[in-house]
């Protein structure tokens, strides 16, 4: 079927070459778009294919039908078409289109446009019957393609009505060539050419005038007229009486055409008019005949508005207008036979593997039971490839009773409803489904869909309950559903901060995803695992896992590089974050930014959100609090209420941490006022918000309150092995104790932290907390040297020394230049100021204008807080800039 949609329609022998329109089309190759817009029967398709024959331009032809209103499918067809001549073009885009939901369409389109640049000669894309496109995304996609296509790539839109594209702008930029019905109409000359030269009918001038006025130059009317001439003795008299009574001319002509057919042919035409695509074998089985192929070929020879869809003459279709006229007559003559015809067509399509056509004909035959049956056979595949729009369309065709009688289909329909945000309707179905379902695996799928719905509505407890039931009921054999269920269950555990259980669930998900060879689910479960390991303070294991997986992905040549880029975005982010924690700041930031950039190409909010969050954390770890805040702000934009809740929690608590570390009390007070108080003590947000709140209390010097809040967290965090936050809690306790002048307790807290982290390369976590921590670390070092105690002995000297030396370096770095403080040019200027050079002298020496020097000087004074040049030089020396 694919090939028939991409077939360039061939022109018959007896056609009129429209030389003047060819010139217009030639001119169109210099513009961005050629629009051929006219209603049915104006010879749009013939004109374009005839011109292509003459012009010999390489062409991808796409005959659009109503089923093409899915943007993914639409773009796939175009790429498949171009690949017929250029197999390498759009390979990556196509690969990405096969895993919908993970990558944004805009990005895929950009990738495709980039590929088009490689083609060196002219290439034409014809989108025929574009009026059948209703989908707004496709309109946008085509609009984008028109604007950004390379010059040697040309587009013709052929349509019955103007689509909502920015034609006014294209016109004003002289980037549009239009061919409309007034251009396409046959002139007297064309009519003469057709009837007298091509068809050799020898009409006189009066006949021609009459034909022109009766058909108004409309080509379909003229051609149908020619067909009715057969068997007419006096053509002039006949022409005179054609549609003489002002009736619809096509009605008149069609009647004439059918009258001169044999009865067999007449019935054949009427009955096959219900088919969008016609083949001999299909007609034979539908009509109980054995000569359909011959009939089809004779129709083609007789110019009977039938168009071959391939070179082998296997598939045909009628001209749409001709088919409409036939169908209307079928409706009048054989209304009772129509359902049976559809039923037989459906049967043939089913037997020959064309599911979608089989379903449509079954529906037309009013055999909903059959349609449901057919849909049930393909529904799992539709679900696995995220064809939610198609699923929704099918679901909407059936009554509730019919849906409930077909549980699996109904569940998947509910899933699609949920994805499209129709939660009340979805929930209504799910409740009813639960009442009626006995089969365990199906029950499991209902629970899993319920979980999805509860995640969307933000109900953590219910989401947990349903994910647990889903894992219980879904059979392990059902690999993909089971992998989904375990991922959902893992996520639910995470929200309840049950980290060990979360890891177990994710592990099961990974196993099933591997068995099903589903790379997407594998990447999701693995990257979540890496994150949970991090929460447990297992930095090394998490780092290693992420790195290993990245290597596996990069080495696997069977998977497309771009797809992997997106799936591995989170892994890069995690690896980058660890590198920075280990104080390998430059490499870490680079890697984390790489992950962040890759994630931008994803449509999935959790990919984008997660990578952005980790980048913000990485920036925080590197000490760049301002940039970290910028990224957190960016997160706000795309984390709406529907996005994963835990990302919101993490983003908010990071924001609080950053304002606290920057000492920005106003902002901090504001957030705290608007946030909290969360009641449930099991949940993820409880811990994160309480730690954040303690920071706030410390900033406000409410040390006792802070300490009691922190102490409350310790037990729970220990129980679930959440050592990363536990370490933070201990460091904050140390800060509070230190400020209360309780040195011993402060030392005790830091010792706890060191024992947790010394084998896991935690470094920046300490450094960022500032000099209080450094002072206490020095004390611990002293104590270790003078006293022995079991706990102190357990702490590695190397670890403490390493931390202290980094603290030391950090101070120097802070004092020394720091590029963000003075630009390179400002620094050059400052050096010359210190040498007592005048502005003019500095300008000469640096080859810059005196105005620029003045700007630099003004900035330097401002940044150093100096009153004049002398003071600037002194301050710069103090800070070690010079």
């Amino acid at each position, binding site marked *: 079927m694919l090939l028939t949609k991409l077939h360039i329609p061939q022109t018959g022998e007896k056609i009129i070459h429209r030389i003047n329109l060819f010139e217009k089309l030639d001119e169109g190759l210099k513009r961005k778009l050629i629009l051929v817009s006219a209603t*049915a029967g104006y010879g749009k398709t013939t004109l374009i294919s005839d011109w292509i024959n003459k012009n010999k331009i390489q062409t991808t032809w796409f005959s659009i039908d109503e089923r093409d209103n899915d943007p993914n499918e639409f773009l796939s067809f175009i790429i498949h078409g171009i690949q017929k001549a250029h197999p390498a073009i759009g390979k990556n885009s196509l690969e990405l289109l096969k895993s919908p939901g993970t990558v944004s369409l805009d990005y895929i389109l950009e990738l495709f446009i980039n590929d088009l640049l490689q083609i060196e000669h002219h290439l034409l894309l014809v989108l025929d019957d574009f009026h059948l496109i209703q989908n707004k995304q496709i309109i946008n996609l085509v609009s984008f393609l028109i604007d950004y296509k390379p010059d040697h790539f040309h587009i013709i839109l052929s349509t019955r009505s103007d689509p909502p594209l920015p034609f006014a702008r294209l016109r004003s930029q002289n980037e549009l060539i239009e061919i409309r019905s007034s251009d396409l109409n046959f002139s007297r000359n064309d009519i003469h050419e057709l009837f007298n030269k091509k068809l050799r009918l020898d009409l006189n001038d009066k006949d021609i005038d009459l034909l022109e006025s009766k058909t108004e130059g409309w080509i379909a009317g003229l051609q149908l007229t020619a067909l009715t001439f057969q068997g007419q003795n006096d053509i002039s008299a006949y022409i005179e009486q054609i549609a003489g009574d002002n009736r619809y*001319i096509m009605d008149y002509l069609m009647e004439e055409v059918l009258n001169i057919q044999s009865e067999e042919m007449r019935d054949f035409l009427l009955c096959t008019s219900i088919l969008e695509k016609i083949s001999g074998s299909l007609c034979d089985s539908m009509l109980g005949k054995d000569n359909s192929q011959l009939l089809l070929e004779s129709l083609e020879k007789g110019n009977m508005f039938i168009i071959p869809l391939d070179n082998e003459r296997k598939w045909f279709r009628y001209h*749409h207008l001709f088919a409409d006229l036939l169908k209307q007559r079928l409706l009048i003559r054989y209304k009772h036979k129509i359902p049976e015809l559809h039923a037989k067509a459906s049967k043939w399509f089913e037997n020959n593997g064309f599911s979608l056509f089989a379903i449509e004909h079954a529906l037309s035959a009013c055999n909903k039971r059959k349609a449901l049956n057919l849909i049930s056979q393909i529904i799992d595949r539709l679900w696995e490839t995220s064809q939610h729009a198609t699923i929704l369309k099918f679901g909407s065709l059936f009554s509730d009773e019919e849906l409930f009688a077909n549980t699996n289909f109904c569940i998947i329909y509910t899933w699609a409803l949920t994805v499209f945000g129709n939660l009340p309707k979805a929930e209504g179905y799910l409740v009813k489904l639960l009442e009626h379902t006995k089969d365990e695996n199906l029950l499991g799928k209902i629970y899993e869909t319920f979980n999805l719905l509860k995640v969307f509505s933000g109900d953590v407890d219910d989401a947990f309950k349903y994910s647990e039931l889903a894992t219980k009921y879904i059979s392990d054999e059902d690999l993909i559903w089971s992998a989904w269920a375990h991922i959902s269950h893992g996520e639910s555990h995470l929200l309840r901060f049950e980290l060990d259980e979360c890891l177990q669930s994710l592990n099961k998900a990974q196993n099933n995803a591997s068995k099903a060879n589903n790379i997407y689910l594998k990447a999701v479960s693995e990257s979540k695992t890496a994150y949970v390991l991090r929460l447990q303070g297992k930095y090394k294991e998490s780092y290693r896992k992420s790195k290993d997986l990245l290597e596996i992905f990069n080495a696997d040549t069977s998977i497309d590089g771009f797809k992997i880029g997106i799936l591995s975005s989170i892994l890069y982010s995690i690896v980058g974050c660890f590198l920075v924690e280990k104080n390998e700041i430059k490499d870490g930031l680079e890697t984390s930014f790489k992950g962040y950039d890759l994630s931008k190409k994803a449509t999935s909010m959790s990919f984008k959100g997660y990578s952005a969050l980790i980048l913000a954390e990485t920036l925080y770890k590197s000490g760049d609090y301002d940039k970290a805040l910028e990224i957190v702000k960016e997160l706000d934009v795309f984390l709406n209420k529907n996005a994963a809740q835990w990302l919101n929690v993490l983003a908010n608590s990071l924001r609080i941490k950053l304002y606290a570390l920057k000492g920005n009390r106003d902002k901090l007070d504001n957030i705290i006022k608007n946030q909290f108080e969360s009641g449930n003590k099991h949940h993820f947000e409880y811990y994160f918000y309480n730690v954040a709140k303690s920071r706030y209390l410390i900033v406000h010097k409410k040390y006792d309150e802070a300490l009691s809040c922190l102490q409350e967290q310790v037990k729970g965090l220990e129980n679930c092995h959440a050592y990363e936050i536990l370490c933070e809690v201990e460091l904050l306790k140390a800060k509070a104790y230190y400020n209360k002048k309780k040195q011993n307790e402060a030392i005790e807290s830091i010792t706890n932290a060191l024992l947790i982290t010394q084998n896991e390369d935690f470094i920046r976590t300490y450094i960022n907390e500032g000099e209080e921590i450094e002072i206490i670390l020095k004390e611990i070092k002293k104590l270790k040297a003078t006293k022995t105690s079991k706990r102190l002995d357990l702490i590695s000297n190397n670890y403490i020394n390493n931390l202290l030396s980094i603290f030391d370096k950090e101070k120097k770095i802070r004092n020394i230049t720091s590029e963000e403080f003075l630009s390179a040019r400002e620094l050059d200027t400052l050096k010359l100021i210190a040498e007592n050079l005048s502005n003019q002298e500095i300008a000469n020496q640096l080859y810059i204008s005196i105005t620029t020097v003045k700007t630099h000087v003004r900035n330097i004074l401002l940044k150093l807080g100096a009153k004049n040049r002398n003071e600037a030089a002194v301050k710069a020396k103090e800070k070690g800039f010079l």
Partner: protein
Amino acid sequence: MSIKAEIKIKGLLDKKWEDWFEGLNISYEDGNTVLLGDLNDQAKLHGILNLIRDLNLILISVEIK
């Protein structure tokens, strides 16, 4: 919320087309055709207009009553 539509097209269209146009009533006025009847909603109306376009009939006026 059904709407009552009156659609005028040029020339005479046979009454047999009533079924094709969702059961709209066909009558004639000054040598032109009037399609008259109730339609479910605007989308249905646009569907009818598309049918008219697809047959290359010439639309004179559309009126919602």
